[in-house]
Structure formats: C-alpha cells, structure tokens
C-alpha cells in the first residue's frame, strides 16, 4: 500500500491487517521505553491547513514512537499566509525528502492532489467534507476491542452527516467490516442519495433501541451558513443523545471534540457506555500501524525524491 487517501481503497483484509498490527503496538505504551526503531531515519511531514489538536498530536506521537523524524507544518504563521499555493508548499517542503506527508485540508480531494505531486506516501488526515480514513480505522479498532467482530452489528450514526468526513469514512469502514449502518439527522443535514453507500436513513431517534452502537457526530457550526439549523436548542431536543435515550447495553462513540449539551448530554459523556477516551487512545496505535504499513519495507531505492516537474 502506498497512500491512505480513502477508506474506499481498502479491502476488509487490509483493515484487519492494519488493526492487528495496531494491537501489537498497544503494549509498547506500557513499557519503560515507549518507542521502537522500526522507522528510524524516516521523515514524516505533518501538513495541517486546518485546526486540529488530537489528530495532529496523535500522528506526531505515532511517528515518534516508531523513531521517525517529524516536521510539523501549520498553515498559520507560514508562507501560506503570504499566498503560497498548496502545490508550491508541497514542492518546497518536498525538498526535505519526506517519506510520508500527512495532510489535513479544508478542501475535499486535497490529499489525492498532493499524492500526484510527490513521491512520498500521502496520508489523508481529513480533506474537507470528503474523508478522514484514520478516524474510521481507529473507530473500528475501538469497536473490535470493545465488541469483537462487527459482523451483523447495528451502528447508528447521528447528527450532522452532510458536513462530516468522519461519517463518510466510517460508513465505508463499518460496512466493509460487515456492520449495518443507519444514519440519523435533520433533513437539512442529510446529503441526498447517501443511501447509495448502502445505509439506511432516518430522521428521528424513535427506534434508537435497535442500535448496538450509537455514534454521535459533532455539530459543526463553523461549516454551516446558518440556514441548516433553526437553533441548537431545537437540535438538542430532537437529536441529543442523553441518558433517557441511551440504553445501558449500547456503546457510545464520538470523534471529539464534544459540544456538551448539544449532540451529547454531559451525563452520557461521563457514562460507562462512552468509549470516547478509548477512541483517542486507539488513535496513536492505529496511526502507528498506518505509518508502518506505508513506510516499512516499501522502498529499496533512495529516499523519496520529487517527481520531475511536468510541463504545465
């Protein structure tokens, strides 16, 4: 495997191989020395065009636990503010010969574009409303540790589906692993024809009891133009997962950061059903497994070099 751009590129066996390896990385965190030399001498470039705390820090920690060198590049405070294009930035930073580029961008398809401009392995850490594949992998990993196999399980994804790259990647990953996926949210936040991905669509939580797993999404006010939701109060009244709606046998997930009192009530965030901190912990080992998959043993030639410039 060369890049990780979309869950759609992965077969079930790829997901299982990566997650089995993630499980092998778990015990490293309990040791005296919390790193292994597997990617010694490799360089990982974190290219973040969008705010991110947990994804970026977990990629950084993952790379460091594998002994890779990490260069962090944030769009603010860089030449991007002076108007440098994504392509020029990638070509410039490519001069450092990174082995992997981890990119987060507000634009769908950015990671795939970058993959065409560099010989490094590219990992999509979120591109606009399109995909966030490592989030989906860590969610599958968390569920596998919590429930075992996902085959036949019912997973309800609740909230702002339209703006959610997490939803898109997770639908693909959960389906690939054999789960039944149901999407719930207000019609204004439900993309048209989303059923084509093989999931059911509902507009209320009346039958939430059917779910084995409830996956609540963050209400992304920063991506809305004000027309989608009349008010957060009304959203919370209809779609908030709270103690009244959540059954004790159900597993509650959320990609973070949580808007307490909006998509989740405070009581369920702190309940034993919530696996939100497990998800964060899974983030590091799963990203280690992804970096290892892409970088260990792929190159016998010299380190990554830029492609020859193509005539425009």
């Amino acid at each position, binding site marked *: 495997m060369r890049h990780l751009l979309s869950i759609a590129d992965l077969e079930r066996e790829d997901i299982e191989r990566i997650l*089995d*390896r993630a*499980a*092998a990385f*778990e*015990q490293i965190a309990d*040791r*005296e*020395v919390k*790193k*292994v*030399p*597997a990617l010694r001498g490799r360089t990982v470039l974190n290219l973040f065009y969008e705010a991110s705390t947990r994804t970026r820090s977990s990629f950084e920690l993952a790379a460091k636990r*594998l002994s890779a060198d990490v260069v962090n590049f944030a769009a603010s405070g860089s030449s991007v503010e002076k108007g440098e294009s994504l392509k020029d930035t990638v070509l410039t930073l490519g001069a450092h010969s990174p082995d992997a580029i981890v990119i987060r961008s507000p634009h769908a398809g950015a990671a795939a574009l970058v993959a065409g401009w560099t010989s490094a392995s590219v990992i999509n850490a979120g591109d606009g409303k399109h995909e966030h594949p490592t989030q989906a992998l860590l969610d599958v990993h968390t569920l596998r540790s919590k429930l075992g196999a996902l085959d036949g399980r019912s997973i309800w994804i609740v909230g702002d589906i339209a703006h959610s790259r997490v939803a898109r990647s997770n639908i693909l990953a959960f389906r690939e692993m054999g789960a039944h996926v149901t999407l719930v949210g207000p019609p204004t936040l439900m993309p048209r024809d989303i059923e084509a991905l093989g999931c059911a669509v509902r507009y209320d939580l009346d039958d939430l009891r059917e779910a084995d797993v409830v996956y609540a999404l963050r209400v992304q006010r920063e991506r809305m133009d004000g027309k989608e939701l009349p008010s957060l109060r009304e959203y919370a009244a209809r779609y908030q997962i709270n103690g009244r709606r959540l059954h004790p046998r159900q597993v509650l997930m959320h990609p973070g950061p949580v808007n307490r009192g909006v998509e989740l009530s405070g009581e369920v965030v702190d309940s034993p059903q919530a696996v939100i901190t497990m998800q964060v912990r899974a983030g590091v080992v799963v990203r280690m497994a992804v970096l*290892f*998959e892409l970088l*260990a*043993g*792929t*190159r*016998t030639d010299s380190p990554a070099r830029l492609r020859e410039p193509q005539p425009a």
Partner: protein
Amino acid sequence: MPHAKVVLDGDAMRRSLVRIAHEIVEKTPDPELLALVGIHRRGAPLAARLKSLLDELLGLEVPLGDLDIAFYRDDLRNRSDAPVVHASHIDFEIDGRTVVIVDDVLYTGRTVRAAIEALSDYGRPGRIQLAVLADRGHRELPIRPDFVGKNLPTSRHERVNVRVEELDGVDQVAIAELEGITA
C-alpha cells in the same frame, strides 16, 4: 517437502530441551532471578516447554514472556512488504533478572541482536543469555549461544526447518535444500 533430512525427531527434541533445562539450572546461581523469553514464532512454544521443565527442577514459577522482534529488524527497509507482527508479552519486571532468550535456530545472529535491543526497551536485565534448539553456524555478528540443543553444520544453500507440536502438529528438525522448497 523433497530432499528434507530429519536431524532431530520428537524424542531427540525432548531430550535436548531437558538437557538445556539442566544446564540452565547448573549455570544459574540465583534461580529466583531467572526468566525466559521466547522469540516469535517457534521460540515461544520452546520457551514455554523449558519453563515447565525448569519449574519442576527448581520448584518455583519461572516468569515466561514472548517477544516479536519485527520492529527491530535491520532489514525492514529491504523487504517488499511490511511484516506480519505478533504482540509481545513481557508482564514481569526484567530489571536485574537473568533473561534467557529462547529461539529455534541460530543462524546469522541478526534476530538475536534485534531481540537484545528489544529487551533493553523493557528495562535493564542483569544478564541476557541465549538458548537455541539448533545452531547452524554462518554468524554475521559477534553472537554466541549459551545453551545449544544441537550443532548442525549446514551450507547456506540449505534451510533448517523446525516444526513444533503447538504450531505444526509435529516435533521435528529437518534440513532441506533451498532449491527443493522454492515452491
């Protein structure tokens, strides 16, 4: 498998392990500091067998662990694919202990080097020793075993196949021509 010559059968393997266990007891002044760590995959079941032999001889519980050295290999870069990885389990403090690394075949010594490096990331053992079922020579690093089941003079064109009951259904060590197993 064509051209395979059996050099140790089940009985001979058992006797070798018993002898190794006795040698470990003789050479270990502080049995309560002893621990065994088997290297994945076939070193792990061999270490487990040594543990039960040693438990009986010493009348105590010898701590047992297993180690996957995939992340420590020096040839990761040259492989075409990322290797299969098993979880390691070392659930005891190794600081100050005599840790005996157990593997099936000693060849170039590179696996053992990786295992020593991996072990030191768990702590600082008092000493590290090496027990192998078969030593086939051709070392590429300055590494020597402390306990050997059988010395097997081989050529580099041969392959030593160790099979263990736990994983392969039979106990056996055989030498095969590399040409014969290209399939």
